[in-house]
């Protein structure tokens, strides 16, 4: 047998966790580009450096986003990946699929690309990994034929995503998938045609567990919450007491110390509860959120580039989240407008708010200052009387 051309990668075929190298080899049997990718990756493993050139603008008709241009910096050695562009394909909300739809995507991708995919990219899109420039338009046309559109990229709204929500989670405080559908449809233009200062993200989690990491990576974070009393089923509480220590595991870990347990009944001083979800997570049969439900809206989170990472902060403590979601869409529109008008190139919303002050943002989008917006008041005396005295 001939010596393997990819001895380093071959090592990653071993071991119990699923191996991406196996998938690359599987695709390489059919596709020259996948074979070339395997070779170039092996080269990176040898050289300790990536082998892709800087960016490159490619796309499909009518869109400025959705395709990431990629060119090898060693095309002589690996002509199969000379151009190897990624297509970001907007996933169905909640990442639910029929196998019919999945197979159709696979067929299109076998026809036009490397046969390699990501299910899914970090933003949530289906990533179709690697095709040549001449295949982009035909591939998009075939995707359109089976009902799949492109996602966002560049200085555009990025593909929004949502947690599984009411499809399979009893903790959903509103219909995250329906809201996601509305947001995605409403802002197609802003997603497909980059015209903002930088990228902007909306992520939707239907309860404070925040399964899509909305508070860490969305310029506009939607997080489900409730008002009123947590519903307690004392019979189920007693059942829980048989398998867990309610005092140490639940009551003692409540961050606001608003619970008590006397061995017979659990009580919650709901006025003091900050709705962190800890107790409900641990006792899903016994505890349920209050009946009045909606969402908290927060803004400004992002990864480090450019001026450091930020978490989102509260701007609307409670918003009802019922279709057609006009109030939320209006808030998004006002936020986009403020950021578009005032943001510098490559300045995310959170950085803009830090530069110009939260007060200005609140005024621009028509929100009143509330104590729920801050962790603690300022400690410096450097404030303005902008309206005069």
């Amino acid at each position, binding site marked *: 047998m001939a010596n393997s051309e990819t001895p380093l990668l071959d090592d990653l075929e071993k071991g119990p*966790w699923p191996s991406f190298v196996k998938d690359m080899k599987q695709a390489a049997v059919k596709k020259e580009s996948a074979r070339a990718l395997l070779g170039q*990756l092996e080269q990176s*493993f040898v050289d300790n450096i990536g082998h892709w050139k800087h960016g490159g603008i490619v796309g499909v008709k009518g869109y400025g986003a959705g395709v990431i241009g990629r060119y090898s910096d060693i095309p002589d050695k690996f002509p199969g990946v000379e151009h190897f562009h990624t297509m970001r394909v907007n996933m169905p909300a909640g990442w639910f699929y029929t196998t019919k739809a999945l197979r159709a995507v696979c067929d299109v991708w076998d026809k036009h690309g490397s046969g390699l995919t990501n299910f*899914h990219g970090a933003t949530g899109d289906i990533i179709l990994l690697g095709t040549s420039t001449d295949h982009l338009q035909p591939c998009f046309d075939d995707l359109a034929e089976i009902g799949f559109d492109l996602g966002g990229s560049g200085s555009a709204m990025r593909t929004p995503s949502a947690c599984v929500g009411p499809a399979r989670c009893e903790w959903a405080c509103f219909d995250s998938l329906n809201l996601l559908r509305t947001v995605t449809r409403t802002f197609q233009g802003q997603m497909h045609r980059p015209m903002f200062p930088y990228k902007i993200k909306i992520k939707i989690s239907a309860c404070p567990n*925040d399964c899509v990491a909305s508070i860490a990576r969305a310029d506009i974070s939607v997080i489900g919450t409730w008002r009123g009393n947590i519903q307690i089923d004392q019979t189920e509480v007693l059942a829980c007491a048989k398998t867990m220590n309610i005092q140490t595991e639940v009551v003692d870990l409540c961050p606001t110390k608003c619970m008590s347990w006397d061995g017979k009944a659990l009580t919650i001083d709901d006025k003091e509860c900050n709705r962190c979800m800890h107790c409900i997570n641990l006792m899903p049969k016994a505890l349920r959120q209050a009946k009045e439900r909606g969402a908290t809206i927060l803004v400004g989170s992002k990864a480090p580039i450019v001026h450091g990472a930020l978490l989102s902060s509260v701007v609307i403590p409670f918003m009802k989240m019922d279709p057609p979601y006009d109030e939320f869409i209006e808030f998004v529109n006002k936020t986009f407008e403020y950021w578009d008008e005032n943001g510098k190139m490559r300045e995310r919303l959170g950085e803009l708010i830090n530069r110009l002050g939260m007060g200005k943002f609140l005024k621009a989008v028509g929100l009143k200052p509330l104590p729920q917006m801050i962790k603690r008041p300022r400690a410096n005396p450097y404030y303005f009387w902008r309206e005069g005295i």
Partner: protein
Amino acid sequence: MATRTDFGPPDYETMLPPIIKKNYGMWKYHERVKPGLLKHVAESGDELYTIRVGSARLLSTDHVREICDVAEKFCGGYVRFTSRHNIEFLVSEKKNVDPLIADLNKRGWPIGGTGHSITNIVHTQGWIHCHTPATDASGIVKAVMDELYDYFGSWKLPGYCRISLACCLNMCGAVHCSDIAILGIHRTVPKLNHEIIRTKCEIPNVIAACPTGAIRPDPANKSVIVNEDRCMYCGNCYTMCPGMPVADPVGGGVSIWVGGKVSNTRSGPAFSRLVIPFLPNTPPRWPETVAAVKNIVEVWAKHARKHERMGEWIERIGWERFFEIAGIPFAEQIIDDFTLASETYRTTAAFKW
């Protein structure tokens, strides 16, 4: 043929299994039956079983078809993926659960990732498909998950542990709020190619892109000069200008950050904090990185109280104690010197030896 545009993704309602359509928004509670197996019960009394399977995220179309085969055999032709790259098989009939698990075991697909386990590592493209990485993504993830494999399919840990990886400071994905974040970092200043900078780059934008103001114009050359003392190798200038690459075979590597989370439970969302500023790129299996991650997981597992996440445990015992228990040498880079640095300095005389 006129190209159709802006029609949006397929409607999720056409992708939902009948049991979910029927019980949409009417789930009552769920049980964690065993690692990787969830049981959701609806108000109607219907039961839905979810079997979660780890995946490499990078899948061939043939592999996706194999997933479809399984979903057709046991799940009526429906399947879903999670936000952490796992696959979920949704079973509406209890009698299909064990045969499905047996089938998955035969294929060698790992079942787990629910409850107090280590679930799939959210990660990025790395050398496979990005132009700014300081390290690879899929390779490290595979090596780490091979080593932590037992924690995926079991409940041996005190709480949740979310590991994420990003191959540069752009941090595609929310790695900066993970229990353990593996982050690619560069350590060398941009290598200037004046010819490219002159012809391809908007110099004012390049200057504005630098978070530390390290770049100034070089009018004589119609290019830029980088003040090497101020550069912290973030690569932001390279994003704006192909004439300023920062990647370097020796300079590139991995840093380790711990104690972040996104959920609001108990302590609230938090950033991960730097504990190891640099580990070398050592493909194919990055043994230094794997060992560092495993050590941190096991030290936490040994010392944390039940339900305590990494960051909650460390905040309870104090960071000075964490470095001691974990046996991690304290490096000067761990002390912040960026814009809000003083928030991280100790402003009390109360600390532990």
